[in-house]
């Protein structure tokens, strides 16, 4: 069955430092992968998506992710984070008519 695993529940970083949020997926078929961001007291917003094509996907707010089939990973990266990036981030992938979400990674950016 398709599933996603986020390897870090919390990631604290200092402002302007780079960050990587890790996501592994399991599937024996072609995959669709998403990263969503959730700010406090809000719903989820799409950051970026991988449907096919180039393995490096660029999203909003300077985030990007790389689809790595050999490592079954879809890690999210940003070269320099801002205080405003403090939020919870979810990796997700469809399974039949269900979108399966990881448990989430709380990114905290410190001044």
């Amino acid at each position, binding site marked *: 069955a398709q599933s996603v695993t986020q390897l870090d529940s919390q990631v604290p970083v200092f402002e302007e430092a780079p960050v990587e949020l890790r996501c592994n997926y399991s599937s024996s078929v072609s995959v669709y992968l998403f990263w969503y961001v959730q700010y406090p007291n809000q*719903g*989820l917003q*799409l950051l970026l998506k991988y449907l096919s094509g180039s393995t490096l996907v660029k999203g909003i707010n300077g985030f990007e992710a790389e689809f790595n089939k050999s490592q079954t990973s879809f890690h999210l990266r940003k070269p320099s984070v801002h205080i405003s990036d403090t939020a919870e981030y979810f990796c997700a992938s*469809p399974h039949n*008519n269900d*979108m399966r*979400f990881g*448990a*989430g990674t709380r990114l905290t950016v410190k001044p």
Partner: protein
Amino acid sequence: NAGVTQTPKFRILKIGQSMTLQCTQDMNHNYMYWYRQDPGMGLKLIYYSVGAGITDKGEVPNGYNVSRSTTEDFPLRLELAAPSQTSVYFCASSPTGVNQPQHFGDGTRLSIL
């Protein structure tokens, strides 16, 4: 530019009471979804709908019911509320299937006491 609208934003229920969480979208999306979010658990699908008149169970449907009489509305009903249903509920929609990005409402925070 409303997108997906959920009401109410907050609610406290007593055990055994019932209520309906409202969800409406103005994007003419065929697919709609209800999720619950619990701390450290991500989101779990409760029910989904692929169009008016068509609904199906997700991963955690027990204790809930849905209906889809129009393209715009997808209410979620809780019958006989239980403490285990304390959660944050999100409604989402997408134009076609689950392979496309979903648009989320801001959620309903529900406490059962």
